[in-house]
């Protein structure tokens, strides 16, 4: 930081910007400014995150003892359903795309807004209506199906508010589809003259791939939930064998959406890491084209591996083999990305500021999550591991260790752009460290107890697993502290943080060429397009 001087003349605080353009509630709720919509999403997903995190905290407390001590079986089942539904659809999926993507995509390509600003606002309203349905279903009694809604349990046997919660997801799904559509059209049609596809920052490649998945996969989820509701309400036999249906069909449809959805929950994080690693190494990303095409490869291959959730479901063993080999193949582009990020560090000029700490943590945790994915893709090993805590640990390493860490990296990286102020560096670095330690203590023991045979979604468990649950709960407590710290210091920084200036990181990228916070139409003068993305000159800077 000491190398960076900030003069107030660069960014006079009195200047008109997107935040000062209107202070009424109406000016926020009827805004079509992509930056304000990004902020609306940020506030909403934090509320959903908080509710889902409380559910997780209650479950971890309850699991301290093998036979429970303050929660009923039914309540426990509702808690993990609530945790899964809110975290997947109302935090992870919108986190980077709808918050950071909305905020920076138009600026990164030198545009004034997204292609369809009103549609963008409609996406947020759909998201909020969906979220309200889900919260309401919790208030009136909750849902006990798990976030996967497996039939015939969800369609026939559950006595909870399944339809209400499914309706919430169904409605929010349309918000996702419109966001994906908006991003694709924006990236195709609104790039400034001279910004060719291979001059785009890698964040855009990753969000472009994410958007493809959003518009191709989300409709399948809507269809699946609608069919489940048809069976539940009018007893039309689709999934329940007693009505002539096939319960495995539901799993095929559900995972045809939900496996690609896993990549919705990781590709944007990879995009953030590509930006942050190159900026804080002051070096062009290693293998730009390989990283860019790896995103597209992940998006495409991600559609072909859904059956790996079903190796023991009684699907054909030959189908299992095809899905297994494709799952191993989808690990290759992910590995390419990790190798390229590591190689980017070579001969860089590395500073370990908070976004960089999170980006490095992302690489570490994502790699562990990815490697344990190989265990689960290996057929005979998966037969033992599926539906145990090993799976729980694996996907938390990807989704929390990966995506949430990536989101934290991006939030800290673009925070000065969003607010015009810097977050305080030392507390932020400390929080990153606490989150890293707490996360590993929470989820690493779960790999071990998973291999030892502890099934997931178990309220009561065999006593030999207790020690691992205690470790996990201890880790979750530390993790909770780690997540509270940014809430405090980021709010503090809104008022007391140092004025950031247009480009506090001296980062490349068009979003850094405008003032912070940016004016309503993003650029007062057309930005100057650099000859290539990541045009850092390491040697001249610090050599």
């Amino acid at each position, binding site marked *: 930081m000491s190398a960076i001087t900030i003069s107030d003349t660069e960014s006079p605080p009195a200047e008109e910007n997107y935040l000062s353009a209107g202070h009424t509630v109406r000016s926020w709720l009827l805004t079509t400014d992509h930056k304000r919509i990004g902020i609306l999403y940020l506030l909403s997903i934090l509320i959903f995150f908080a509710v889902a995190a409380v559910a997780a905290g209650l479950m971890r407390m309850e699991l301290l003892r093998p036979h429970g001590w303050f929660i009923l079986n039914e309540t426990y*089942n509702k808690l993990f359903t609530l945790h899964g539904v809110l975290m997947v659809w109302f935090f992870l999926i919108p986190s980077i795309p709808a918050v950071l993507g909305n905020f920076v995509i138009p600026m990164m390509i030198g545009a004034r807004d997204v292609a369809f600003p009103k549609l963008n606002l409609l996406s947020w309203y759909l998201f909020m209506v969906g979220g309200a349905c889900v919260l309401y279903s919790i208030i009136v009694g909750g849902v*006990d199906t798990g976030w996967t809604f497996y039939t015939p349990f969800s369609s*026939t046997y559950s006595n909870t508010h399944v339809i209400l919660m499914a309706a919430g997801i169904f409605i929010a799904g349309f918000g996702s589809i419109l966001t994906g559509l908006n991003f694709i059209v924006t990236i195709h049609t609104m790039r400034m003259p001279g910004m060719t596809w291979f001059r785009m920052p890698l964040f855009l490649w990753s969000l472009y791939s994410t958007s493809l998945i959003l518009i191709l996969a989300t409709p399948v989820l809507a269809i699946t939930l609608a069919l489940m509701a048809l069976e539940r309400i009018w007893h039309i036999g689709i999934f329940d064998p007693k009505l002539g249906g*096939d319960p495995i069909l539901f799993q095929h449809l559900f995972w045809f959406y939900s496996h690609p959805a896993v990549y919705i929950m990781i590709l944007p994080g990879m995009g953030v890491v590509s930006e942050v690693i190159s900026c804080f190494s002051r070096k062009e990303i290693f293998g730009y084209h390989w990283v860019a095409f790896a995103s597209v490869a992940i998006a495409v291959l991600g559609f072909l591996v859904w059956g790996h959730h079903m190796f023991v479901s009684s699907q054909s063993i030959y189908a299992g083999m095809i899905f297994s080999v494709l799952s191993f193949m989808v*690990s290759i582009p992910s590995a390419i990305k990790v190798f390229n990020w590591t190689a980017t560090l070579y*001969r860089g000029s590395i500073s370990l500021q908070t976004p960089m700490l999170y980006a490095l943590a992302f690489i570490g945790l994502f790699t562990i999550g990815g490697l344990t994915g190989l265990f689960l893709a290996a057929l*005979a090993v998966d037969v033992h591991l599926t539906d145990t805590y090993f799976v729980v640990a694996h996907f938390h390493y990807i989704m929390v260790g990966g995506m949430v860490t990536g989101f934290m990296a991006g939030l800290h990286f673009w925070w000065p752009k969003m607010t015009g102020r810097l977050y305080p560096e030392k507390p932020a670095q400390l929080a990153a460290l606490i989150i890293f330690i707490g996360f590993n203590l929470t989820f690493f023991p779960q790999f071990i107890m998973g291999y030892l045979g502890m099934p997931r979604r178990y309220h009561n468990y065999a006593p030999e697993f207790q020690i691992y649950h205690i470790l996990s709960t201890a880790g979750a407590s530390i993790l909770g502290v780690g997540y509270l710290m940014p809430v405090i210091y980021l709010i503090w920084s809104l008022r007391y943080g140092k004025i950031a200036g247009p480009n506090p990181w001296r980062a490349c990228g068009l979003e850094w060429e405008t003032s912070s916070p940016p004016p309503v139409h993003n650029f007062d003068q057309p930005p100057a397009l650099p000859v290539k993305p990541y045009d850092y000159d390491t040697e001249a800077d610090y050599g």
Partner: protein
Amino acid sequence: MPGFLFPNAATEHARNVDWLFLCLILISAFYLAVIFGPMAFFIFKFRRGKKADRRPIRIKTWKIEIIWTVIPFFMMMGIFAWAADLYYQVERPPANALEAFVVGKQWMWKIEHAEGNREINELHIPLGRSIKLTMTSEDVIHSFFIPAFRVKQDVVPGRYVTEWFHPTKVGTYHLFCAEYCGANHSEMGGGIIVMKPEDYAAWLSAGAPRDSLAASGEQSFRNLGCSGCHMGNSVIHAPRLEGVYGGPVPLVTGQIVTADDQYIRDSILLPASQIAAGYSNAMPTFQGRVSEEQLVGLIAYIRSLANKNPPDNTIP
């Protein structure tokens, strides 16, 4: 296998899975070393403000990219083949296995041995024999998971699935339901008790079942009225069931299906769906009139007729 890391292994298959698991751990350690070793070194060596050689790299990067694409690819394919081979073995029961039938329901496992012994949430089996379970569910999807054998199979309503194992160690092992099935999912379990063959024989005779599974199936066959059409000299033209099981059945549609457990089940519950060639759609459905246990008995009975021939005086 070291016991502190690996759970109890009570079958040959469990030990095979452990070796593969160990190999995956070593591969993971290799990757962690090649990623985080250099990463730690670079962060140390190229820390901002530290003197270092930061000139641009002059080598062809695509060669490096090819290396770190191709090497992992071949490692992945090797692991795939190893794991697929083990999976193929564990998904295909041997022909000479002892048999038991399992019905899952919210929230218990009901088990019936071929000899007729019944138990709930426990399965007694002899050491050194292959055991084949044929399973179905009365309500939602369950999953029959025995960690010590490294086997798991979802138990799906409306179909028969199989699971098999060959225990090599006497003991009592956990049985868990691994597919979320509602309020008391975590209590839906019990024990697998592996006994010495002589102890098992004693256990079987102490249980003193009145009838074997096939015999109780024959009883149901009469009680439900099946025998009225499928046996004796009924005026209704219905297929005789001797010698049917396991063989090919030509259907009116021209298809030929194998008369396995699933076919017999579907013929009882959904008789109109697969009509044997030469017959008409005369049989009523038994959906809702026959329990999963009765179905299992009926199938065992029809299977016991597999090697018999129909009497000569009946129309084939």
